[in-house]
């Protein structure tokens, strides 16, 4: 963290960061979100305390809450009262925690499988043109195929166990990582490669010392997309397997067929919180791992 501080405190480091992202970094499919100065700096830490920082979102939330309450009062079958959602959560927190944990497990294991497969394929694809020509078209077609449609077929094939859920989650996470990492591995500047060519560094050495670190910013951008996506994948699979024992997706499908709207929304609240939490974690890791990348945005050279 100390190094991050000094990085941001250097003159020029704060100037370009707002929109100073390297144009070469915008991958074709995984759009790289602009890195904000945010996360690590002292000033932005204090910003959280300023009313100008948190007031706008608070006003919006209160406004939405009022609209929700008004609508819920007139037509309780459209929206459940917020109090009912709160009661559902507070009345049986263990129930939601257990189901959230089941969904989270599927999401994270599926993500891990998708990550490993995508990373290995990304290395293959970036090192071997032949593999690139074979794998990329298939990956693209897979990506545009709606996975919601695949899920029921997988349930038929694999039953109500964890397999179809893991496959759907892994498939959803696969493509952004493949594209992000394979783009990142090839993002090394020609001058750097020439230096390592004259050193006669082996392909493996170049991959390890140069290409893989170069791909890290791309990888983290992919992960920021894929972490919340993994939850979506898990829930989609659970919804497609209505006989499954647990998971927030199952809670939603059972509760909605019983017209228990408050429970449905309570589960949705849990999912939204889980997604946000994962995003928060991955962003925190990214800010630690990529402090050098952050600082590059403010390069004076």
């Amino acid at each position: 963290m100390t190094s991050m501080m000094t990085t941001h405190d250097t003159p020029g480091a704060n100037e370009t960061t707002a929109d100073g992202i390297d144009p070469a970094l915008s991958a074709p499919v995984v759009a790289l979100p602009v890195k904000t100065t945010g996360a690590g700096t002292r000033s932005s830490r204090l910003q959280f305390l300023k009313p100008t920082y948190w007031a706008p979102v608070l006003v919006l939330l209160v406004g939405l809450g009022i609209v929700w309450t008004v609508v819920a009062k007139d037509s309780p079958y459209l929206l459940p009262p917020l109090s009912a959602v709160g009661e559902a959560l507070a009345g049986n927190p263990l129930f939601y925690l257990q189901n959230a944990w089941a969904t989270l497990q599927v999401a994270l294991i599926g993500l891990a499988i998708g990550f490993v497969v995508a990373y290995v394929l990304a290395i293959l694809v970036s090192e071997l043109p032949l593999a690139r020509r074979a794998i990329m078209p298939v990956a693209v077609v897979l990506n545009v195929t709606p996975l919601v449609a695949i899920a029921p077929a997988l349930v038929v094939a694999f039953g109500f166990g964890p397999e179809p859920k893991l496959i759907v989650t892994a498939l959803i996470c696969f493509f952004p990582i493949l594209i992000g990492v394979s783009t990142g591995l090839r993002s090394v500047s020609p001058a750097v490669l020439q230096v390592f060519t004259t050193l006669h560094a082996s392909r493996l050495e170049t991959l390890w010392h140069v290409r893989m670190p170069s791909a890290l910013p791309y990888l983290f951008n992919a992960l920021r997309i894929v972490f919340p996506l993994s939850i979506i994948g898990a829930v989609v699979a659970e919804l497609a397997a209505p006989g499954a024992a647990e998971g927030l997706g199952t809670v939603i499908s059972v509760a909605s067929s019983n017209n228990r709207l408050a429970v449905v929304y309570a589960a949705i609240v849990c999912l939204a919180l889980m997604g946000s939490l994962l995003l928060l974690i991955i962003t925190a890791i990214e800010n630690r791992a990529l402090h050098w990348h952050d600082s590059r945005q403010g390069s004076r050279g």
Partner: protein
Amino acid sequence: MNTVNTPAAARPDSISIQGAVKIYGSGATQQVALNNVDVEIERGRFVSIIGPSGCGKSTLLRLIAGLETPDAGTASVFGVSPDAACAAKMIGLVPQAPALLPWLDVLQNVSLPAKVNRGSERRRKRIGGHVEKEAPDMSALLTAVGLGDAVHKLPAQLSGGMQQRTAIVRAFGLQPDVLLMDEPFSALDEFTREAIQGQLLDIWDEQKSTVVFVTHSVTEAVRLSDTVLVMSARPGRITASVDITLDRPRSQDMLKTPEFHHFEDLIRDHLQSAWHEGPITSAA
């Protein structure tokens, strides 16, 4: 690589380019980057290559670095092919951009070359033309070029001049037999450039490497070099070779002396006649 390195071309005590031809593209867009170029650079010399844009000076450098193979002719570095020289880590390259790795600090950046291609030691010993030297203390080398306080800084925290000095130390750190520099100071301001030239000469004096230095600055070429090769474009060829007989060490003050200006004028004349000899279309 054997076709590149015939026994006749392999001279153990010099970098030797003979009858090198390099052609880019084909048909109407064909461009002759190098046309029958002969170069002989003896060990320990500081040789600059100067010429207008597109005269093939970078191509010549890349030929020595083994990054390009000639379409005809031969290239050899101290008796072996450029490729074999790279495999033995006999060649250090300083490209135009510093090309540092942004996630490594200065010390890690300059130490990385020692960590790759570990088989090079063995290969070096088998090459007769190679002169074995002890591995230098990187921290000392960094301190010598004024980076002593910056060893643990990231490249993004350095100025352009400091980044380029880091790249030079990285290349010198391998004790290469030949250091290839491709317009390394072209992005720096005049003042920084002159200061770093001095530091480069200091390290070179200590390490006794052979240096091939591509530049488009006449002053830079005269100050640094033992010999300046003047090139002309389309087709790329060497039109003159000027030995700079000024005394060393060459301080910044020497830049103001009449002797220095004499050599500058001499090279400018050569450049101008090279320009007029070349086709008019070469306005770059």
